């Protein structure tokens, strides 16, 4: 039971959460005492059944990966160049260089992935594009799309193409994406005055018109469209209106919210990350609006369907191929990892089709998924799993919960409450700063450490 059952204070109630048992319950203080001391009376049937469940062996404890690398998808960065100069860019677009992946290399990588997928008995051939702006290297993407489909047909696999993109290109490109891609994550920060302040082209002009046009085209296509919204202090209080407008105008499949990662560019532009408590509250109400419209609200760190040791590519055996043919576990530029003392490079891929991976590098990257002391007693350890390994859970990171931890804990708690039908309790929580702090700043959620419930 140790490390797998948590209790979280929500105003005058307690959330009992056992993620590995897929169980949660809302109880009172006395119940927490009984659970913690294993003093539940049999006649308290519901509580007894919960106690029995949380004391049983969990069906499966996620473990860091072992053995041969088993990537779920092939990540391709056709270029790190970009046609935008977003103030908060952490992908080095401004100084990312203009190198474009060699077509032959990209095709060889697809062939390798197809053979790997077939060998493992997978049903799909998954290729994801990242950047820079992947469609800035449109020719390479075009070739990869067709090669992926060709080799998938040959091997009896279902091709699945996904891209993270800024949406700034002509209608023809947008239609191509809509025709051929299964899923698109489109960076779209909301109303023109917000979006254009942050996401302008190289010539300084705003990109809203182009992105909105792309969004319209993609929303009428078979591709699953997800908007990625960067939330900073300038738009956190307008999330509800933004979401409402998105749903009315575009009806995306999902809206994913990410809080601003501080960069020098963002600071110069006067942008700061939002207050995490405000963000959690605004996410909650905006999420409700989205759900009512049939649009899925998403905060990646709070996704709980499957317990995991990592929610980012790192630690999940992801293989991401850079324009130069280097294979790494992360799509951020190397200098970002290096600034954290990390080496996420795992090898190289050759145009002859050889995936040359360094076994020690693989083990080093995999071990990052396990080494998160800050997360050990946090009820989000099997969902958030420490967040981004470069920005959040890098070795030597401060042990105290930071803003990311605070908002993640609050959002996850509210999501648990919603599942239990306790929406009004979630609303009250998010209206009460001291209650939020009591929840968010609690250093240990482990049931065995629960002292406050005593007496």
């Amino acid at each position, binding site marked *: 039971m140790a490390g797998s059952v948590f209790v979280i204070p929500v105003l005058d109630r307690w959330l009992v959460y056992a993620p590995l048992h897929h169980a949660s319950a809302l109880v009172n203080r006395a119940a927490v005492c009984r659970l913690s001391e294993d003093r539940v009376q049999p006649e308290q049937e519901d509580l007894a059944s919960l106690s029995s469940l949380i004391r049983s062996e969990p069906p499966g404890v996620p473990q860091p990966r072992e053995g041969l690398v088993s990537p779920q998808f092939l990540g391709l960065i056709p270029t790190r160049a970009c046609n935008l100069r977003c103030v908060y860019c952490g992908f080095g677009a401004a100084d990312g260089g203009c190198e474009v992946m060699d077509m032959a290399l990209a095709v060889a990588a697809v062939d390798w992935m197809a053979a790997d997928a077939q060998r493992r008995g997978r049903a799909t051939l998954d290729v994801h594009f990242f950047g820079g702006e992947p469609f800035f290297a449109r020719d390479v993407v075009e070739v990869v799309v067709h090669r992926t489909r060709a080799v998938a047909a040959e091997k009896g696999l279902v091709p699945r193409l996904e891209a993270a993109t800024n949406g700034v290109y002509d209608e023809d490109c947008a*239609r191509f994406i809509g*025709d051929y891609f299964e899923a698109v994550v489109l960076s779209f920060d909301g109303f023109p005055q917000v979006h254009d302040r942050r996401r302008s082209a190289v010539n300084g002009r705003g990109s809203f018109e182009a992105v909105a046009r792309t969004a319209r085209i993609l*929303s*009428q296509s*078979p591709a*699953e469209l997800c908007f990625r919204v960067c939330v900073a202090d300038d738009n956190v209080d307008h999330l509800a209106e933004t979401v409402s407008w998105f749903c009315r105008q575009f*009806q995306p*499949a999902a809206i994913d919210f990410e809080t601003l990662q501080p960069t020098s560019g963002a600071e110069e532009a006067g942008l700061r990350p939002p207050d995490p408590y405000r963000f959690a509250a605004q996410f909650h109400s905006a999420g409700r609006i989205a759900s*009512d*419209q*049939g649009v899925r609200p998403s905060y990646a760190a709070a996704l709980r369907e499957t317990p995991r040791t990592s929610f980012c590519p790192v630690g999940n055996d992801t293989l991401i191929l850079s324009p130069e043919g280097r294979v790494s576990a992360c799509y951020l530029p190397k200098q970002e990892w290096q600034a954290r003392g990390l080496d996420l490079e795992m090898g190289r891929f050759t145009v002859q089709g050889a995936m040359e991976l360094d076994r020690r590098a693989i083990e080093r990257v995999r071990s990052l998924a396990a080494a998160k002391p800050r997360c050990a007693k946090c009820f989000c350890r099997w969902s958030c799993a420490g967040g981004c390994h470069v920005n959040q859970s890098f070795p030597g990171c401060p042990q105290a919960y930071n803003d990311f931890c605070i908002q993640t804990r609050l959002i996850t708690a509210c999501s648990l409450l919603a599942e239990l039908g306790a929406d009004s309790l979630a609303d009250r929580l998010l209206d009460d700063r001291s209650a939020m702090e009591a929840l968010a700043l609690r250093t240990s959620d482990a049931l065995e450490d629960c002292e406050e419930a005593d007496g």
Partner: protein
Amino acid sequence: MANISITNACNRDCSYCFARSPAPRNMTIPEFERSLDFVQRSGMDQVRLLGGEPTLHPDFPRFVDSVLSRGLRLLIFSNGLMPEPAVRCLESAPADRAAVLINVAVPGECRPEEDLGQRSTLRRLGRRATLGLNIYAPTVRPDFLLGLIRDLGLSPCIRLGLAHCRVDQTNRFLHPRYYRVVGQGLAGFAGAARAEGVALEFDCGFVPCMFPPGFLDTAGITASDIGLRCSPLLDVLPDSRVVCCYPLASLHCEPIPEHHDAAWMRNRFEARFSWLRPAGIFRECAGCGLRASGQCAGGCLAAAMGRLRRAPFAVSLPNG
């Protein structure tokens, strides 16, 4: 069947309406009689009157009499906001020969007076009235209809429709990528409907693959029941032109034939649009077993047209 649209006047403004027309037109009495001649010549025994809102036609009661006096059965497609003479006319029509399908608005999507108007009509028509619902967004749920049927003593049947796109995509419609989500929801609802003795009917455009595995078997519906609904309905417009169906209306129309029947017209429309049939609403349609075995036509043709691409490209190659 053939649908006769006797007017394009309407007293609602549904975002998903595919029958909108800028030019107001009521079908004249001679045009209506000619339409009925066509229906009878075609061996059909039921006339379906549509709009706009058909009960707004100034000669609506006379049209009803004309249908019934020919020994034909009548089905009216209405939004339930009827003028009093129309309601009285329908109340007095023989219940075994005249029925009304009322397409109700989703709660919150109409004004309070419209909601009251619909309920009032439903209450008066009772078992003559069947409820219909057009699903135009993945959030549209039919659950509230069961309460209406129970409370107002309506016919224990619900006709479900998908809001289809006009070819020019000027109306709100349910994009095929939401079909599976909708199918999942309907499969859940079907259980509740069955428990209350309410039957579900599916309009054209539904496809077997949108439902979870096993649902069709449980519901006693075959794949081809659902999958082959898309075919020329024959909609007679207020100006007597005949179209394949409303979503495809802008592509082709023909006059009511003087001597030929509906089967002849359907063959003409089938031939006209046959080149489109191989395309389906999903990328997977081309390789689908149900398609290959003739149990599914690939969904709504107008929706499939949304996937069509055209480009007048030209390229020069060295010759020899």
